[in-house]
C-alpha cells in the first residue's frame, strides 16, 4: 500500500522522523524508502569517526546539513590515549567541501581540530550556522577568528572544555558589524584576554542571544554592561564574579541582575567573591540548571545558602566541598532534581570535607526523579547503593567513583543487579575491579544493549576477550588497558573478526619489533568499522 504513495508524501512523513534509530529502521524497509530516506536525511550522527569514511557518508546522504562526530576513546579524557593517536576532522571537512555539501552544523567531540580545518570550514559552507566543539584540541584563536570573520549566518559558537592555544589575536573583533545572528556564544574555556569592547558591541547587536558563557578574563564592569544589554539571556556563564561589593559596579550589577528574569541556567564563577553572591539570589528561584563545579571559592556555607533558594533545580553540578550536610539541604530543597554531579575538590590535601554515601542516600530519598548521577566520594557501601537504587528507579546514567574502597570485591556485579537496569546499559567503565575473566564475560552477556565498554587495570584476559567475539560487532568499541590480554589473544580476535579494527597502542621503544604472542598488551582499542584499518594511524598504533 505504502508503495503507492508518491515520494513527496513519504518525504513529508519522514520529516517527522527525527531520531536516528527511527531513520535507520525506515531506510531498511524497501528500496524506495531507502532512497527517500537517504535524500531527506539532514542530520547524521557518527559515534566513531573511524567506523565509516567521509566519502561514503556523503554519497549516501547528499543533503546532509548537520554532522556529529566523535573521535578519541573516552579514556583519552584521563590521559590514557597518546597525544597523536588520531581523530582528525580535516578529512571530513575536506570531503564535504569537495562534495559541495550544504553543511550548516558541525558538532565534534574528542577530535583533533586544526586551524586549517576551521579555515576550510569557514570558507566552504556559506550557510554554516553552528559549531560545537567539546573536549577537542589542536586549534588556536586564529581558527576562531576565521569562523568569526567568514560565517555570515553564525548562530552558535559553543566551545566546551577544549584545549585552545591563545594567540592573543582579536578573534572576537572579527565578527563583522553585520553579524547579528548569534544566539549562543560560549568561550569559557579560553585562557586569554578578549577584546571586551568588541564583546559588548557584539552582545548589543545580537538581539537573539540566549546563551552566553564568558571566560575568566571578562572583568566585572563588563559583565554588568553585558547583562544590561541582554536581559533576554536564558543561559549565563559568569567568568569573573569577583566584584568589590562596595563598588558602584556591583550596585549596578545587582539592579541589572534582577531584570534577568529569563535566566534558567547559571555556570562559571571561576573567580568569585562570595560577598557578591547575594546579587544572584533574585534569579535563583527560576534556575533549572546550576553548575558551580568550577568554583572552588564558594564554601559550603555559601553554597548551601544559594541552593536553598533554587527550588526548581533539575540539574546540579558541584564540588564535594558541599559535604553530606549540604547534600541534605539539596535533598530537601530541590525536589525536581534529575541530574547531580559531585566532583572532587581536594587535590592538594588541605583536608576539605568530602562527601560519603550518606550524602547520596539523602539525595536519593529527597529527589525521586534523579536519573543521572556522577558521584566522587570518599567511600561507599553496598547497602547505600541498594537504598539509592530503590529510591530512584529511573537511572539512565550512573557513575560512581570511590576514593576509598569499602566495597567487597564482588562489587562489579552485585549492586548492579539490585534495581540497576543492567540490561539497558549502553556504556560501562570498569577500573581496578573484578577478580577474573568471569566478570567481564558476565557483563558482555548481561548487558544486551552495551555499546561501549572500557576497562583498565582489571584482571580480564584472553578468555574474557574471546568468549563472544560476535558481540563486538554489536558494540561501538571496547577499550582494555593494563589488563591480562595478550598480543596473541588480540591477533586471534582480529583474524576472526575482519570487520573490527583491533588497535594495539604501544608507546615503548620501536626497536622491539613485533612482540611475542604471550606478551601482555599495554593498551588495546577495538571498534567495528566498514572501512578497514585507518590510514592515519601513528607508528605506535598497530592495527592487527
Amino acid at each position: 500500500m505504502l508503495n503507492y504513495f508518491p515520494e513527496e508524501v513519504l518525504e513529508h512523513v519522514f520529516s517527522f522522523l527525527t531520531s536516528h534509530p527511527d531513520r535507520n529502521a525506515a531506510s531498511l524497509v524497501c528500496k524506495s524508502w531507502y532512497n527517500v530516506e537517504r535524500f531527506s536525511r539532514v542530520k547524521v550522527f557518527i559515534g566513531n569517526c573511524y567506523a565509516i569514511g567521509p566519502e561514503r557518508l556523503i554519497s549516501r546522504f547528499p543533503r546532509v546539513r548537520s554532522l556529529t562526530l566523535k573521535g578519541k576513546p573516552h579514556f583519552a579524557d584521563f590521559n590514557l590515549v597518546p597525544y597523536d593517536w588520531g581523530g582528525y576532522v580535516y578529512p571530513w571537512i575536506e570531503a564535504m567541501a569537495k562534495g559541495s555539501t550544504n553543511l550548516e552544523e558541525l558538532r565534534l567531540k574528542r577530535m583533533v581540530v586544526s586551524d586549517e580545518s576551521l579555515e576550510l570550514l569557514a570558507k566552504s559552507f556559506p550557510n554554516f550556522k553552528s559549531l560545537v566543539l567539546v573536549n577537542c584540541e589542536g586549534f588556536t584563536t586564529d581558527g576562531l577568528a576565521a569562523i568569526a570573520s567568514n560565517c555570515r549566518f553564525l548562530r552558535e559558537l559553543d566551545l566546551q572544555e577544549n584545549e585552545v592555544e591563545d594567540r592573543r589575536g582579536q578573534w572576537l573583533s572579527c565578527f563583522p558589524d553585520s553579524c547579528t545572528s548569534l544566539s549562543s556564544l560560549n568561550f569559557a574555556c579560553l585562557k586569554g584576554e578578549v577584546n571586551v569592547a568588541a564583546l559588548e558591541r557584539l552582545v548589543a547587536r545580537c538581539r537573539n542571544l540566549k546563551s552566553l558563557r564568558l571566560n575568566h578574563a571578562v572583568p566585572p564592569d563588563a559583565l554588568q554592561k553585558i547583562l544590561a544589554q541582554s536581559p533576554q539571556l536564558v543561559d549565563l556563564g559568569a567568568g569573573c564574579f569577583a566584584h568589590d561589593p562596595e563598588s558602584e559596579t556591583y550596585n549596578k550589577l545587582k539592579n541589572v541582575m534582577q531584570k534577568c528574569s529569563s535566566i534558567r541556567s547559571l555556570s562559571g564563577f571561576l573567580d568569585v567573591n562570595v560577598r557578591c553572591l547575594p546579587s544572584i539570589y533574585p534569579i535563583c528561584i527560576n534556575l533549572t540548571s546550576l553548575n558551580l563545579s568550577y568554583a572552588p571559592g564558594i564554601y559550603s556555607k555559601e553554597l548551601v545558602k544559594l541552593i536553598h533558594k533554587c527550588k526548581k533545580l533539575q540539574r546540579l553540578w558541584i564540588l564535594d566541598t558541599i559535604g553530606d550536610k549540604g547534600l541534605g539541604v539539596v535533598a530537601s530543597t530541590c525536589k525536581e532534581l534529575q541530574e547531580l554531579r559531585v566532583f572532587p575538590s581536594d587535590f592538594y590535601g588541605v583536608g576539605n570535607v568530602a562527601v560519603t554515601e550518606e550524602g547520596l542516600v539523602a539525595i536519593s530519598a529527597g529527589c525521586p526523579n534523579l536519573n543521572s548521577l556522577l558521584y566522587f566520594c570518599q567511600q561507599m557501601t553496598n547497602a547505600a547503593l541498594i537504598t539509592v537504587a530503590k529510591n530512584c528507579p529511573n537511572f539512565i546514567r550512573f557513575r560512581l567513583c570511590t576514593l576509598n574502597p569499602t566495597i567487597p570485591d564482588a562489587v562489579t556485579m552485585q549492586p548492579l543487579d539490585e534495581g540497576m537496569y543492567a540490561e539497558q546499559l549502553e556504556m560501562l567503565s570498569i577500573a581496578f575491579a573484578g577478580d577474573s575473566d568471569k566478570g567481564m564475560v558476565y557483563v558482555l552477556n548481561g548487558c544486551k544493549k552495551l555499546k561501549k565498554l572500557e576497562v583498565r587495570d582489571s584482571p580480564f584476559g584472553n578468555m574474557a576477550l574471546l568468549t563472544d567475539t560476535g558481540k563486538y560487532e554489536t558494540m561501538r568499541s571496547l577499550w582494555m588497558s593494563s589488563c591480562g590480554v595478550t598480543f596473541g589473544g588480540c591477533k586471534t580476535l582480529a583474524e576472526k573478526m575482519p570487520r573490527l579494527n583491533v588497535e594495539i597502542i604501544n608507546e615503548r621503544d620501536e626497536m622491539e619489533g613485533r612482540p611475542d604472542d604471550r606478551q601482555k598488551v599495554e593498551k588495546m582499542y577495538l571498534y567495528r568499522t566498514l572501512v578497514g584499518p585507518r590510514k592515519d594511524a601513528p607508528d605506535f598504533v598497530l592495527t592487527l
Partner: protein
Amino acid sequence: MENTLLGGGGGGGGISGGMSIVSREENNMAMSSDESSSYPDESELELGLGLSLGGGAKSKSKPTATAGPWGQYARILTAKDFLSVVSTKESSSSSSSSSSVTKANNNPSCGVKRTAEPSSPPGRSGASQVVGWPPIRTYRIQSLVNHAKSPMTEEITSAVDKWLLKASLFVKVNMDGIPIGRKVDLNAHSCYETLSQTLDNMFKLSVAVGARRSNAEEQVVMTRPSRLLNGSSEFMLTYEDKEGDWMLVGDVPWEMFLSSVKRLRIMRTAEANGLAPRSHERNRRQSIAPV
C-alpha cells in the same frame, strides 16, 4: 540499538539483497546513535565503577572493609605525601579479597607506577601515582588549580604538576649516521641535563663518535655534563617543534620545550649551523631541512 527489519510493504516491493545489506551495515556499524542533545552523552545509559585505591588513615572503614588492594601505591596525592612519614596501611583483608590483592600487585601490566621508597624526599621520586586516576578531565584539574584560593606551596605545586603530566611522552630520536631510531620518554626527565645524559647512554655517544676518542676520554665524557648541550661535541641535540621547524635543544624553559617538541635529532654540528635559537618572534626563525 539493533536495527530490526520492518516487514516490507505489500505488493512488489521486495527488498533488494545487496542494497539492504550495505545500508544495514552502515546503519548498524557507523550510525547507531545517541539521541542528539547539547550534551552528547546525555541519553546514554552509562555506568562507571571506580574502585580506588588506598585510603587515608582517617577513613571510616567498616569491619568488613578491605583497604585498597593497591595500598600505598596509588591515591590522590596529598600534602602528607611530602612529609617524610608515610601512613602505613592496615589492611583488614578478607580471604576472598586477598587473592585479588596479590593478583593485582603481581600483574605486570598494572598501570601503577611504583617509585622509590616512600620516605624519599619530595619531588619526582617522592610519591607514587597512577596514571589517569581519579577519572577527571585534565581540563577540570587545571581549572581548579589555577583558581585555587589556598596558597600553593612548592610541594603542592609539584604534586599537582605531576598529576597533570601525561603518563609518558615518547618521542623519536634519530642520530645522524645511525639508521635505526630510538624512543625516549621525555616525561621521565625534568631537565635537559638528565635527558642529554640518557641520550648519551642510549647512543653510546662517547663510543659512537668513533675512534678519535680514547678510553680515558670515554670515562671523562660520562661524568662531565653532557656535551650535547654545550656545543663542544661533534653532535648537537636538536628538535622539531609543532610547527615543523628544527631548533636547538636547551634554549627555552623545559616545560615549554615539552609542550612543543615532536621529535629529536642528534645532528652533526656541521649541519646544525643553520639553526637559530628560538626567539619569541616567529618571523625571525631560520629553519633547516628536517631529516
